[in-house]
Structure formats: structure tokens, C-alpha cells
């Protein structure tokens, strides 16, 4: 998967530029809510429960201010990515213990035709490992500058 293919999975309605939550459990709720509002998820409680179960496996706060909570769940029919940016930072129990400022929520069904869940997850990890891209994503003031940052500026 390349950056151009990845960008097609982001939607303006699922881009939250001012996350207000300050804790992991609150930010997961804040990120799931747009999926509920747009009819992508019927049962938010189940999604939140499986996301929290995923955190027992190991924190999805991968360090350097980034978290990528993710899960497969029967509750959704397609892959969705919700992005959040927090200026003040979220206490997330990240692996480097630093606060999180950029968060990607990925939810996917158990099976998808193109099997893109793991490639998307891998591409986002690769993208945020690049410090220039990561900083540009964190600074994005709107959806178009966010997409521009994904494509390398």
C-alpha cells in the first residue's frame, strides 16, 4: 500500500482536529462517536469493549505522541479510520509514557474482500515513524492539510 492508496481511507467527517478528551477511555469514546452518528456502528458499547480488550494485549500508544487503537469487530461492515488531533495531549499509557497528540482509530470487519486491515495498519505505523510526516500530521489545521501531509507535503 502506498500513501495515495492510504489517503482514500480518510474522510473529512472522520477528522477531529480538536480532541477534547484527556484520557484513553474518553478519547476512544470521542473517536467512536462519529461512526455512530453517521450510522456506521449500531452498538458503540461493543466496539468500545473490544478496543479496550485490545489494550490489554499491549498499548496501542506506539510512542512519539501517536496512538493507533484498532480492532476487527463483527459490528462494522467496512474499514473505517477516524483521526483525532489533541493540542493539550491525552494520557494514554503509551509505550514511551508520553502524552498522545495524534490518534488513528481503525475498525474493520472480521473479513474484507481485499484484506486491507493489516496493510493499512502497517502503512500508518510506517508513516508516523517518519518524523517530518508525523509533525506535519500533528500540525494539520484542517482535513486538506492533513491529506497533504499524508502525501508527503
Amino acid at each position, binding site marked *: 500500500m502506498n500513501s495515495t492508496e492510504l489517503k482514500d481511507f480518510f474522510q473529512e467527517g472522520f477528522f477531529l482536529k480538536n480532541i477534547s478528551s484527556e484520557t484513553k477511555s474518553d478519547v476512544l469514546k470521542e473517536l467512536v462517536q462519529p461512526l455512530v452518528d453517521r*450510522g456506521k456502528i*449500531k*452498538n458503540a*458499547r*461493543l466496539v468500545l*469493549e*473490544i478496543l479496550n*480488550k*485490545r489494550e*490489554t*494485549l*499491549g*498499548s*496501542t500508544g*506506539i510512542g512519539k505522541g501517536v496512538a493507533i487503537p484498532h*480492532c*476487527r*469487530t*463483527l*459490528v*462494522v*461492515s467496512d474499514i473505517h479510520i477516524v483521526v483525532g488531533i489533541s493540542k493539550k495531549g491525552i494520557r494514554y499509557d503509551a*509505550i514511551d509514557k508520553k502524552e498522545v497528540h495524534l490518534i488513528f482509530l481503525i475498525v474493520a*470487519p*472480521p*473479513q474484507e474482500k481485499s484484506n486491507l486491515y*493489516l496493510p493499512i*495498519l*502497517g502503512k500508518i*505505523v510506517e508513516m508516523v515513524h517518519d518524523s517530518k510526516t508525523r509533525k506535519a500530521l500533528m500540525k494539520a489545521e484542517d482535513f486538506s492539510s492533513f491529506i497533504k501531509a499524508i502525501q508527503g507535503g
Partner: protein
Amino acid sequence: MTRSQLELLVLYQDINLMLQETEDEEKGIGFRLEGRERLQQAKDELAKKIEPRFLRSYHRLSTRYKHSIAPVQKDTCLGCFAKLPTSYISKGRDDQSIITCEQCGRILYWIE
């Protein structure tokens, strides 16, 4: 809030799948996954809350299918693509009842 037996089964299936994919996540992508045992314990605890007859049914189905629970969309079982009878539809949407597809036998979960 109390979870229904169907919700517990859906969580059980989701956790099973998560456990199956840990190697891909760890070796393929680089996530640190030190909590496999904790998640396995959570799954075992969850199993205790599921009525034995439903859990038996889930495991019996898992010998035939990759996923014992199939999503329902547009009143169709997405496991076998059979159109479901109207009588199922009113019962199935509330996430409370365990309903199985009369064609493939999978447990049904209405995703819309």
C-alpha cells in the same frame, strides 16, 4: 449495563480473532504485545458468562466455518447470502435474541 448473550458471543468471536492475529501484528507491524495471557484470561472469563448451550453451538459452528457468527445486512445473512424471513427481522435487530440462519446455521448479528 448487562450484556446480552448475543453481545457476549460477538465479543468472544472478536477476541478469538484478535488472538489469532497477534503474530501478524507483532512480527509484521511491530506492536509490542505482552498481554496475550491477560487477553486469554479475559476470553475465558467471558466464556463463563455465556450459557453453555450457546457456547457449545458457537464451537460446533466453528468446526464448519471460519466465523460462527455472521453479520446480517439488508436482511441477508452474509455468511451464506440467504435472504432471511421477515419474522426474523423484527426479532434480530435488538441484539438480544440468539437467532440462527435457517440455511447455514450460523448465529446472526444485525449490523444495521
